[in-house]
């Protein structure tokens, strides 16, 4: 989240798209209801009339996978009607930048694709001889980002879009007029999204379309604004912050690739070029964070002479995302699997293929609270246990309340949790289990092995007790001074905790396991454990700066300097997040995005010391035109990889730069005419291991079901409670039907299309069992992140025993 949960209450308009917040993030509605009571409008865009839709002022249905078309029509409306925050556009975005004249968008493509990759050389700026980007503040130059954007989205008129999304034109108008009303400087709107947005072959571009819209309306960095990813697990924010994904190290540093042979060459790829004298280009500090990270991991063994042990870091040479790993496993290239709190036999796409891939493993270690479906994969339907040779170990794990530690919520708040109850039986904390792994690895490598140094030299000093200390882990993440230092007159001793990432150094005199969390655990104490409620008179926006700790540097709203004009005056004085005080030469309010003055002085002259608000990009300005993504600088509508219709926006049917893993497993509309999506319910969690074993939750939702419209059910003779068989190109499942007016057929340009939805929590093991929706989903993913396209695929459906496999 750019903002945080409490801040939803400050919004004038909340748009929920690709999320069913009322169902999956019930607590969000505490704040959304507060906003609505103050007059805010709630818009829900979803294929189904969900619990969130039921609370909305405006509900717009859309066919799964057509978000860019719908948002594109809202962008087009905002530009055509002039509902823009013009000062914001000029001050804080790259709207005025001139793009190279060679840049061309035609036939749905942003240039030539070769070997699955775009030639992106034309997605670049016009520059003067000094390398400065050329701009046109009148926004009239046809090569300006604004004019290119305008031309790109002029194709997205309501009628064309309605023919793609199936949203009635009047609903598109209602969404557009309600949302764009917040272009006024004193108004803000927020977008809440989740997996309904990201789990597409163009998921990243879906999010980008929200960013473009929000920037046009001046809604980023302001109270009640932002783009807010509602994370699906209590600590998934924390795990991505700490390097869960294969392409990032802790703190969103790029993980090194095979070509990054030395620290120097690697750092060159991490620091973006600075193209504006008033850009702070914060990533220029990356060398300090990388060195401090290497010092945290390898301590005294990381020296200037050995490139701070950069050679110890694994270098990636390919795609190690979920789908790619299971494809490799299917080919027998992976011998072992540690499934740590993961249940891919239920949660992974194309379950039948992934379960079959598990058979190729020599060993598996599953670490979980319960016996998961994955940990007993030989019990999967149709499997013969006697043919499976995999040796499986199940390590019982302690639950979050059975151990101490931090949890980072979607709003980036790291909150300390206490050990509330002892774990049952021999269940152990993850930290205990990992420590035993490391100790054993060190023992084995001591006896020999290839390249033992990274393991043998690895620091692992979390105490000598039976239970490793989470406080020592948190302190290591925060970082230490490794030499006596003085900062602004204050002396720090070797071994003192670093007060914040501004104090990290590239010369090896500091350590930090994750620069973003530097400042969370300092000499004064564990700031994540703070529980002070600030009174409303002191904190009218409800930022609660002394409740827990928020990355970075306890900043509650990201890019908050963009809530002010170029002189540092808040656009919305009644909802002021920060304000520049020219007399005191400092910012008041939330922790600002850096202490520097705003770009302009009070008299309107340029301040050379001033800095633009978007400090994480090289030029300091938010990107309407984003040249760094794999699939184009502007979001463009493509059809899901499996779609019932042709793309009415361009001749390019699919995202042209996705990896197609199993071309033979693509379902065609003639055979599978119905659009399907998967989703969750309040009562169950993810792949179900934690909830399908809890009687009180099983009581509430004992079986999976498929939701469908009355119109579809009528043609198939189906009633609520009937058993139906749902089939895709990958497999077939049988489950109960829910026939409801909450789903309606979509009237598209040239045909009517039905959509159904299936909850995906169920599997074959546990107290409550049932068929897994992911038997139906495909091994196909997003062009940038590889996240699987769970949310739009094709199926057919019949009353069991009538044309379907029962």
């Amino acid at each position, binding site marked *: 989240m750019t903002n945080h949960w409490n801040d939803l209450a400050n919004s004038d308009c909340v748009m929920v798209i690709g999320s069913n917040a*009322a*169902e999956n993030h*019930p*607590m969000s*509605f*505490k704040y959304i*209801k507060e906003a609505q009571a103050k007059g805010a409008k709630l818009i829900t865009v979803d294929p189904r*009339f969900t*619990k*969130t*839709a*039921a*609370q909305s002022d405006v509900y717009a249905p859309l066919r799964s996978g057509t978000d860019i078309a719908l948002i594109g029509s809202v962008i087009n409306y905002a530009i055509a009607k002039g509902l823009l925050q013009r000062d914001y556009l000029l001050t804080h975005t790259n709207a005025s930048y001139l793009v190279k004249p060679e840049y061309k968008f035609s036939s749905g493509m942003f240039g030539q694709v070769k070997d699955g990759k775009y030639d992106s050389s034309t997605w670049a700026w016009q520059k003067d001889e000094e390398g400065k980007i050329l701009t046109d503040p009148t926004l009239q130059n046809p090569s300006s980002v604004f004019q290119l954007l305008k031309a790109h989205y002029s194709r997205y008129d309501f009628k064309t879009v309605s023919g793609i999304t199936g949203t009635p034109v009047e609903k598109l108008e209602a969404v557009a007029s309600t949302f764009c009303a917040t272009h006024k400087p004193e108004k803000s709107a927020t977008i809440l999204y989740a997996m309904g947005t990201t789990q597409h072959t163009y998921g990243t571009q879906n999010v980008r379309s929200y960013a473009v819209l929000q920037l046009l309306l001046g809604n980023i960095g302001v109270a009640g604004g932002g783009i807010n990813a509602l994370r699906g697990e209590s600590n998934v924010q924390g795990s991505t912050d700490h390097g869960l994904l294969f392409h990032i190290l802790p703190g969103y540093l790029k993980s090194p690739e095979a070509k990054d042979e030395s620290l120097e060459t690697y750092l060159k790829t991490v620091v973006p070029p600075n193209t504006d004298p008033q850009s702070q280009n914060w990533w220029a500090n990356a060398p300090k964070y990388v060195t401090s990270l290497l010092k945290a991991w390898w301590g005294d063994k990381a020296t200037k002479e050995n490139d701070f042990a950069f050679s110890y870091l694994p270098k990636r040479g390919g795609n190690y995302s979920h789908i790619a790993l299971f494809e490799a496993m299917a080919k027998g290239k992976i011998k072992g699997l540690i499934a740590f709190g993961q249940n891919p036999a239920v949660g992974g796409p194309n379950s039948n293929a992934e379960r079959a891939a598990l058979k190729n493993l020599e060993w598996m270690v599953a670490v979980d609270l319960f016996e998961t479906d994955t940990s007993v994969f030989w019990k999967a339907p149709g499997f013969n246990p006697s043919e499976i040779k995999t040796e499986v170990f199940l390590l019982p794990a302690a639950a979050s309340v059975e151990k101490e530690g931090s949890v980072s919520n979607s709003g980036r708040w790291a909150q300390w949790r*206490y050990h509330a109850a002892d774990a049952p039986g021999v269940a152990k904390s993850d930290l205990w289990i990992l420590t035993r792994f490391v100790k054993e690895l060190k023992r084995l490598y001591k006896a020999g092995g290839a390249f033992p140094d990274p393991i043998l030299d690895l620091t692992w000093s979390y105490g000598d007790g039976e239970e490793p200390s989470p406080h020592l882990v948190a302190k290591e993440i925060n970082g230490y001074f490794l030499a006596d230092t003085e900062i602004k007159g204050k002396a720090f001793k070797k071994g003192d905790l670093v007060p914040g990432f501004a104090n990290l150094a590239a010369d090896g005199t500091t350590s930090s396991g994750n620069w973003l969390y530097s400042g969370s655990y300092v000499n004064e104490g564990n700031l994540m454990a703070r*529980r002070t*409620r600030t009174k409303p008179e002191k904190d009218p926006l409800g930022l609660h700066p002394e409740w827990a700790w928020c990355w970075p540097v306890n900043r509650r709203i990201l890019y908050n300097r963009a809530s002010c004009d170029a002189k540092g005056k808040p656009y919305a004085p009644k909802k002021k997040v920060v304000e520049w005080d020219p007399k005191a030469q400092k910012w008041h309010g939330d922790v600002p995005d850096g202490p520097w003055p705003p770009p302009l002085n009070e008299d309107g002259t340029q301040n050379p010391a001033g800095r633009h608000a978007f400090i994480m990009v090289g030029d300091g300005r938010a990107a309407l035109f984003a040249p760094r993504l794999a699939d184009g600088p502007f979001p463009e509508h493509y059809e899901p990889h499996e779609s019932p219709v042709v793309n009415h926006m361009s001749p390019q049917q699919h995202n042209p730069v996705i990896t197609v893993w199993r071309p033979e497993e693509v379902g065609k509309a003639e055979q599978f005419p119905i659009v399907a999506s998967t989703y969750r319910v*309040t*009562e169950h969690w993810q792949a179900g291991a934690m909830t399908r074993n809890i*009687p*009180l*939750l*099983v*009581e*509430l*939702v*004992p*079986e999976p*079901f498929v939701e469908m419209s009355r119109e579809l059910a009528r043609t198939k003779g189906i009633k*609520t*409670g009937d058993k139906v068989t749902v089939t895709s190109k990958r497999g077939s499942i049988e489950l*109960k*039907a*829910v*026939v*409801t*007016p*909450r789903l309606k057929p979509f009237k598209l340009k040239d045909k009517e299309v039905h959509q159904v939805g299936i909850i995906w929590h169920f599997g074959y093991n546990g107290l409550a069992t049932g068929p897994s929706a992911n038997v139906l989903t495909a091994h196909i993913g997003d062009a940038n992140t590889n996240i699987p396209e769970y949310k739009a695929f094709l199926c057919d459906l019949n009353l069991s025993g009538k044309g379907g496999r029962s």
Partner: protein
Amino acid sequence: MSHGVLVDTTLCIACRGCQVSCKRENGLPAEKTTFNTKGNGMQNPSALSSTTFTYISYSEVEQGDDLKWVFAKHQCMHCAEPACASACLVGALTKTDCGAVVYDAKKCIGCRYCMLACPFNIPTFEWEKTIPFIKKCSFCFDRQEAKNAPSKVNGKDLPPEQAALHAKTFKEPACTRACPTGALLFGDRKELLAIAKERIAKNPGKYVKHVYGEKEAGGTSWIYISSVPFASLGLPAKLGNRSFPSYARAAKEAVPYVIFGVGALLSGFYWFSKRRSQLEQAKEKAK
């Protein structure tokens, strides 16, 4: 002060935190359920039972092209003048000062008159047990009447501000405490009634212009406001505004007169018949 709960169904998102926290508070086991067509596949369990004191109903309400999906909590309404208490021969059910209608299992003789008397069909019976009792929501009266809320967390004293907050939330029913959206608002019934009427007045067109439970069956501690007719939420309609015990009151009030009058009449008959028999005996003697 008589407490109540204002159920504002326009705020309920059916997270069912209330339903689960009720079971946890009362130590009730999960029922073995299957897919239930009630609530169009969403509601479970299907009805109140001796192990389910509350549930959320799901109603898809279509008014022309307008579709509403409305969720409502069902449990004992805690009537101002409870029919169950009135029907109870042994005084096992009583209305307390805090508003709760509570049940004393020690007094219960298992006649189940309360079940028949309740206009909302709330009390349930432990049919499956050898020594069965009546079961229903107690409005967590034990929490409401608790003298002191725990003031320590992890062995440390809570700061006064937090202790006050904790004490306030501790003294409310488990279900209302679990509600994230304010759909269940616990407080003084009079104040809640005023809030309910204010919400209806301030949001024209949003609510049905009626507070269910203000007068129904003589008034209930739990009151409801809704965007759809209450009957579509499964709340009994046409209950009338008279309390159920008041129907029986005229008959009951007549009991002393009836006993006296009938007694006097019977005494008269007795005297008359005795006198007649005495006279007959005297006649026979005279013969």
